């Protein structure tokens, strides 16, 4: 077999004083798929991650939930094996395959032993390339999806999300629950599921990483076996969409003792030059657990919540700056006010040099610790590919963090944090809060 090595970059991840080494090889399989590989032969197994760009946002018109349902059916029989036969074969190999889909991607996390790698890969190949979508499996998994949807309808966090994202994104796929509704799922046919499979598992949209007891030639063969038979092109990705919610409050009545709040406004793109400054800003504001301003003010000082967090959410087709917390119904109003005040204060006055330095030491020290196993490394490498980052990023990333100045962070805080644009969606019976017009 002819292995075309388009590039071999041996990278050392050295973040003083740490001495981690992650040697990333970037190779191209004989079939033409780019693969990021880390050879780690000390344990006799391999972790494989595949990420197909697109995800449930590719659901066709009136077919909401098709890709989610299809994802649940990939492991329900393939080739000449029924669902039970397929799973019995997988269990006998002690391999694991996890399939998941979300707005922007469909992901496969697999791990398999060296001693039966060929058989484990062939089983996964059949799942991806020859799924059966038998009617009895469709009916059974639909039953599970209905149960999931019903559960979401009574889960305050999901109720908040459905309300918030629906108002923010309307008819765009981001605006609706990707499980679909009971009605939309009930109407899905086998043809719809086959279509969803062809639309989503598209080889040109696949990003692949392999970590473990495997070499470049073997990795190339594995990836070609898995992806070689899939469609090369898929339907257009959805368009970019602006965050459509304006400042205000939406209260969704739900009889439960503790209200949950989801809040936010528009955000920043992952490839914006200011992204690192925004990332550090979020770390200080609500990204870094107990050390964040939100945790200090809402939990530590006032005991209004068990946890308050903020998140930068750069999706493929929209950007958000979000946050969440839960407070007992009689405390929610005060907690909301504290969060609003923090937002206004940091937007107007910025953060301090001390806060910035603490965030930098945390972020730069924490980064190398993430590379602590085959599974985590495979996952990180596929994430980098999805974000369009080069392998060198693992070496340079801490330099990007360290290059951010206090002026950068506070300049970004001034335009990115928009106190008057902050929309809160609160689910529960919060005392003293009402939906604004």
């Amino acid at each position, binding site marked *: 077999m002819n292995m075309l090595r388009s590039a071999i970059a041996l990278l050392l991840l050295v973040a003083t004083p740490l*001495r981690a080494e992650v040697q990333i090889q970037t190779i191209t399989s004989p079939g033409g798929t780019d693969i990021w590989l880390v050879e780690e032969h000390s344990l006799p197994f391999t972790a494989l991650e595949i990420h197909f760009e697109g995800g449930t946002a590719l659901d066709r018109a009136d077919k909401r939930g098709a890709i989610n349902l299809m994802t649940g059916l990939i492991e329900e029989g393939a080739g000449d094996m029924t*669902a039970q036969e397929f799973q019995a074969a997988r269990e006998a190999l002690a391999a694991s395959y*996890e399939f998941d889909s979300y707005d922007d991607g469909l992901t496969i996390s697999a791990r398999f*032993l060296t001693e039966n790698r060929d058989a484990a890969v062939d089983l996964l190949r059949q799942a991806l390339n020859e799924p059966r979508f038998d009617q009895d499996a469709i009916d059974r998994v639909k039953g599970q999806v209905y*149960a999931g949807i019903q559960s979401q309808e009574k889960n305050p966090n999901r109720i908040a999300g459905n309300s918030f994202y629906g108002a923010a994104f309307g008819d765009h796929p981001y605006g609706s629950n990707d499980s679909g509704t009971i009605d939309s799922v009930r109407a899905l046919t086998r043809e719809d599921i086959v279509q969803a499979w062809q639309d989503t598992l598209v080889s040109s949209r696949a990003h692949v990483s392999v970590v473990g007891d495997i070499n470049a030639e073997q990795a190339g063969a594995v990836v070609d076996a898995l992806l070689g038979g899939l469609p090369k092109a898929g339907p257009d990705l959805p368009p970019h969409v602006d965050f459509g919610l304006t400042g205000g409050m939406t209260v969704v009545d739900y009889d439960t003792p503790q209200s949950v709040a989801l809040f936010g406004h528009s955000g920043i793109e992952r490839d914006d030059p200011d992204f690192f400054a925004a990332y550090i800003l979020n770390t200080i504001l609500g990204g870094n657990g107990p050390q964040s301003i939100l945790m200090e003010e809402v939990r*530590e000082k006032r005991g209004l919540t068990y946890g308050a967090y903020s998140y930068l959410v750069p999706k493929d087709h929209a950007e958000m700056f979000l946050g969440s917390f839960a407070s007992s119904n009689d405390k929610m109003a005060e907690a909301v006010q504290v969060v609003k005040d923090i937002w206004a204060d940091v937007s107007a006055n910025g953060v301090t040099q001390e806060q910035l330095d603490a965030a930098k030491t945390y972020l730069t020290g924490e980064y190398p610790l993430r590379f602590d196993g085959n599974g985590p490394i495979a996952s990180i490498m596929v994430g980098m590919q999805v974000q369009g980052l080069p392998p060198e990023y693992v070496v340079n990333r801490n330099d990007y963090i360290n290059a951010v100045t206090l002026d950068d962070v506070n300049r970004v805080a001034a335009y990115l944090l928009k106190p008057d644009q902050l929309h809160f969606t609160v689910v529960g019976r919060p005392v003293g809060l009402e939906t604004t017009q």
Partner: protein
Amino acid sequence: MFRRLITAALIGSAPVGAAADAVTAYTLDNGMDVVVIEDHRAPVVVHMVWYKSGSADEPVGSSGVAHFLEHLMFKGTEKFPEGSLSEIVAANGGSDNAFTSYDYTAYYQRVAADRLPLMMEMEADRMNNIWLTDDFIATEREVILEERAQRTDNNPGSLAREQMMASQYLNHRYGVPVIGWRHEMEQLDLADALNFYTNYYAPNNAILVVAGDVQPAEVKALAEQYYGVLPREDALPPRFRPEEPQQTAERRLTYVDPRVSQPYLVRSYLAPERDPGDQSDAAALTYLAELLGGSSFTSVLSVKLQFESQIAVFTSAGYSGGSLDDTTFALSVAPAEGVTLSEAEAAMDAALQEFMARPIDADRMEALRTQIKAGQIYGKDDVEGLANQYGALLAQSLTVQDIQDWPEILASVTPEQIKEVAARVLNRDQSVTEWVVADREDAK
């Protein structure tokens, strides 16, 4: 989606052992146990201190105090005041947290390996020198009440489980929730927290687990330097808990909560745990759980209730042998649309009867043995997971030898053993059956 829960449960219950060659254990002169697990692939260390005291060791009437103290332990010491413990960990690029269970309270930091001495210095300091005032109490009590609201009061499944455990245990403290009963949590004060601290936070009641890119000899020297100097607590209370009496009556509960989206039933049986030098019943029960409900495709309950009939939308079995005292073996079934809980329970019991009457499928046994073996390999990819297992099991009175014997004990389990222990444990007189519904109308 229920499916993902099943997958997670299967992986979570995968029996994992650790290679003997990567684990070093010793005891300091003051009685503190030390376990070092080496993994040199990444320059990371997980540093944990496990106290062999948890919620089941709390005084009657002060439920939640073990967990409350766990929160207060982050307030600081004279040397590291005002939350600076966590700040210092973060400033060193690490993260820290803690957790409380029935049998233990544990504190950990995950940090670059060369920062280990600092972590030890801080953790050793707060073992002896916690500095608490009444100012902290009121606010932090609000935080744990919000935590209870988030984890339990806002979650009908958690509330249902709380009631079930209270019925399962007639005398033992496992019947009281780890987070505490709300009315008792509201009364917790500084004295309650300090009493628990004074009684139990001592080196001879603690286990140090250090896992990652470290050498055992270096860890030993550091442990002696930082922890070895702490005084032994000679007045450590004996670890005596009220034991369960003979249970002779089946209990049946109905939990009604409009927030329940999917009716389901749970059957919980009192079951033996892993004991020092005596783990074979627990090993057989581990297989029994896998055979009955570990796989959503090939286990008895899924085959009978989801494939051969469409009685259920979800089935599972759960058993974890890690426990100081008697634990539970649980089955659960969520009926499909149009199926009543009575019908689902009858189908579950029929499936159990049929399992007992027939030989155990040899292929399934073989597949489980393969998965156990593979679990040891996959488990080594996660050194933090190994550290957690060692810490928990040691705090639950097992020895390092017991933990290292476990894979071999699992591998040698026979179908006859499984049948024998199943006949003994699946005893309705020692069981609780709970129906969880949104409306009393659904309880039929």
